[in-house]
């Protein structure tokens, strides 16, 4: 190992040779990881490298199959998160653990509510206590009386973090805390993290954004294939990526084929719907047309409307020369349009069901003979897709929920590819996907376009748009404000157009 050795003092928490397998897949194998008091420690690696599993083990949510957990100089065994809490170890898991039908205050102070002499919770004091606790963390925009289900996803992430911080943990694990947060919320979180560090507490976090890792981590541990590669005080991004993936970062984007001059596969004229208006564009066969812009400026709505999942209130749409008025996703699918949504867990995949069932779901009608699914054909189709997309799964029968995020995304892609669509709507398909899988998905998108399909690609990553697309249409406040034509634009141009600058400062 080229990481530094552990000599200085006892670890706040340490995993030694920890292993855990799920359904035959080794999520974590013989991994060691030590956290010191008073440090911010970043845990980085691709999806499926075992970061989340390691955090779940150290947070007491799951038991390791083997290895040892030490807190201070004691060996411990956590049966439940409760045992970890007792040792001052708190975790903000990637899947939020808030109670939707309970108030923000009840969630924040769960188990620590203000109590009267009778031992009963003083409801009158509860909201005030929560408000004060939130204010102490610099949060004034969340109403403690609101139910959690009334708050936004970002607010929930903030509440979840606040709840853990309020318990004054000795070690705080944050699993991808920033993926649901916008920039100023990330700044808020980092201020809190620095404060905890100043108080001698340890904070461990995972992130796919290198800028965040570099800006706040005192040490960085890199994981790959379920084990740690090394722990470093500082490390260059390119070197870190090489250690995470075993490849160079330059190879991330495959070369883009020249813009095709084929016929139009989709034409939109003055489209209007909830959240967008006067949207006109043409998509050629073989073309990858990007949509750029800040989140919430109409792309999501536009894609949903093109797919028939939201109403189109005006304009004309032609697919393959024929007019289309999609009222339901079925209409759009019949016309050869497929949508791959950004939230794969809630908008597409059936997590407890098998890879095979998820792949062939949209084609069940075609696969049926007299109402009975032709299992053999279904199987061979699914197998072909698993092979084409290099989906890493022990078998076709594996539940999709057990796969890593990148492989889940591939299953979703595979489902729509089986339907052989003419137009693909891809909405932020690489968000939360690791570098290696990203690269595979990029190649796949280019192959699909080269095969004569039209691709509409929305991405929140300007770099992705600039490397992947023949043209980019930038949207702001529901309108197309700029077209960046083939070849001659950079990621900075996309961002500048999105925020409305005419010229790029710096």
């Amino acid at each position, binding site marked *: 190992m080229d990481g530094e050795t552990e000599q200085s003092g006892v670890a706040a928490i340490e995993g030694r040779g920890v292993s855990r397998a799920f359904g035959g897949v080794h999520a974590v194998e013989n991994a060691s990881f030590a956290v010191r008091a008073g440090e911010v420690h970043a845990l980085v690696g691709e999806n499926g490298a075992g970061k989340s599993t390691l955090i779940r083990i150290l947070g007491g*949510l799951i038991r390791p199959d083997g290895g040892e957990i030490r807190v201070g100089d004691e060996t411990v065994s956590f049966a*439940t*998160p*409760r045992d970890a*809490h007792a040792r001052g170890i708190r*975790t903000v*898991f990637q*899947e*939020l*653990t*808030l*109670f*939707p*039908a*309970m*108030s923000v205050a*009840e969630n924040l102070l*769960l*188990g620590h*509510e203000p109590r009267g002499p009778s*031992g*009963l*919770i*003083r*409801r009158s004091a509860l909201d005030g206590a929560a408000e004060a606790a939130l204010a102490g963390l*610099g*949060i*004034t*925009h*969340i*109403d403690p*009386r*609101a*139910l959690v289900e009334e708050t936004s996803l970002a607010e929930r992430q*903030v509440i979840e973090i606040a709840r853990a911080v309020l318990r004054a943990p000795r070690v705080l694990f944050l699993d991808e805390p920033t993926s649901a947060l916008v920039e*100023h*919320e990330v*700044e*808020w979180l*980092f*201020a*809190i993290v620095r404060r905890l560090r100043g108080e001698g507490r340890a904070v461990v976090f995972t992130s796919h954004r290198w800028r965040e890792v570099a800006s706040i981590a005192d040490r960085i541990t890199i994981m790959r294939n379920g084990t740690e590669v090394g722990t470093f005080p500082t490390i260059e991004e390119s070197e870190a990526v090489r250690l995470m993936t075993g490849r160079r970062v330059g190879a991330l984007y495959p070369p883009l084929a020249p813009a095709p001059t084929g016929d139009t596969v989709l034409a939109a004229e003055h489209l209007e719907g909830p959240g967008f208006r006067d949207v006109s564009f043409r998509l050629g066969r073989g073309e990858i047309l990007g949509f750029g812009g800040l989140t919430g400026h109409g792309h999501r709505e536009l894609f949903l409307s093109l797919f028939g999942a939201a109403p189109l209130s005006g304009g004309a749409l032609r697919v393959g020369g024929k007019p289309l008025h999609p009222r339901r996703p079925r209409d759009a699918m019949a016309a050869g349009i497929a949508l791959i949504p950004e939230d794969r867990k809630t908008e597409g995949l059936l997590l407890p069901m098998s890879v095979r069932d998820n792949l062939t779901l949209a084609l069940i009608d075609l696969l049926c003979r007299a109402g009975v699914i032709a299992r053999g054909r279904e199987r061979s189709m699914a197998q072909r897709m698993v092979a084409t997309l290099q989906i890493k799964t022990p078998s076709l029968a594996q539940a999709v929920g057990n796969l890593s995020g990148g492989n889940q995304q591939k299953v979703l892609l595979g489902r729509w590819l089986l339907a052989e669509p003419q137009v693909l709507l891809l909405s932020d398909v690489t968000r939360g996907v690791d570098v290696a899988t990203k690269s595979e998905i990029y190649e796949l998108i280019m192959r699909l376009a080269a095969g004569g399909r039209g691709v509409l690609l929305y991405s929140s990553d300007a770099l992705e748009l600039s490397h992947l697309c023949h043209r980019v249409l930038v949207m702001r406040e529901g309108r197309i404000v700029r077209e960046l034509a083939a070849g001659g634009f950079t990621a900075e141009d996309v961002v500048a157009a999105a925020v409305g600058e005419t010229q790029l400062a710096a």
Partner: protein
Amino acid sequence: MSASLAAPARLTRVRRYLLHNLGLNLALALLVVVVALYCGVYFAQQGRFPGNFELTSTVDNTMPLVLAAIAQTLVVLTRGIDLSIGGMMDLTNALAAAHMKAGIGSMLGWSALILAVGAGLGLVNGLLVAYGRLQPILVTLATLSIFQGLAIRVLPDPGGAIPQAYTDALVNTSAPWALVYVVALALLWLGFRRSALGVALFAVGNDERAARANGIDVIRTKLAAYMMGGVFAALAGLVLAATATSGDATTGDGFTLRSVVAVVLGGVSLFGGRGSAIGAMAGAFITMMIVNVLFFTAIDPLYQSFFEGLFLVVVVVLGAVIGRRFRRG
């Protein structure tokens, strides 16, 4: 920019209260409506409004269902369901009728014992659900049959006798004393809602995985819910015996499904984690008032269950529509 997050925009107090307790408020409103309806049809038939006798008998007759509805609420809140409530009522009712003698010692002793039996029966359900990780609907359907079978063994033929003093103490038939019990139960619920166990119950029903991640003992919470459900079902069996002044090993059978109906009418979510036992109590009274209304509208008793069902469907659909409207604001 400093590292703090701001931008307040909040609901008004009243609106929030109504919204957060929508099920309960709809149930109470519906109760007012059906009581008014009842008074209306009663007046049309009798030329006067219902008085003390009607109030007393209605409340007394509803008490067993009120208690069964509370039992069902406790379990439903954990995202479970207890179909064995009727069987537990059969068994506890039979035990009371078969063994209770006049004399304060026997009455108190047997009451305590029967409540403990209820807790034990609930514990059986709870163990199978929480430790055995079996589906609550399957477990309690099985134990329903078992409890019914035991009840028949305890009291093969309807009969036995409940001491008059017991009836007088539990269901005073001359004045609507039972209303005091209703208020006491509501207060008990409000206290329970503010206890650690009460919070845990709602947390488990909201999201079991999240409850565990937050250090809540999910298994103990579920055991407690089923046991408390058993105690309330036993109490329902005792009150039923006191009202009838005798026992019957099948008298509780109808209460399983009626307790589910009361819970749904009371705005308790069958998906767990939302609702109030007060709503379920209101739901119990609503079901009873509907039976009374149907009685006075002189609908053929043969069609009674048809109209009860029709009413239930209409109310549930209406409740969903109003709820959706309200949320959209």
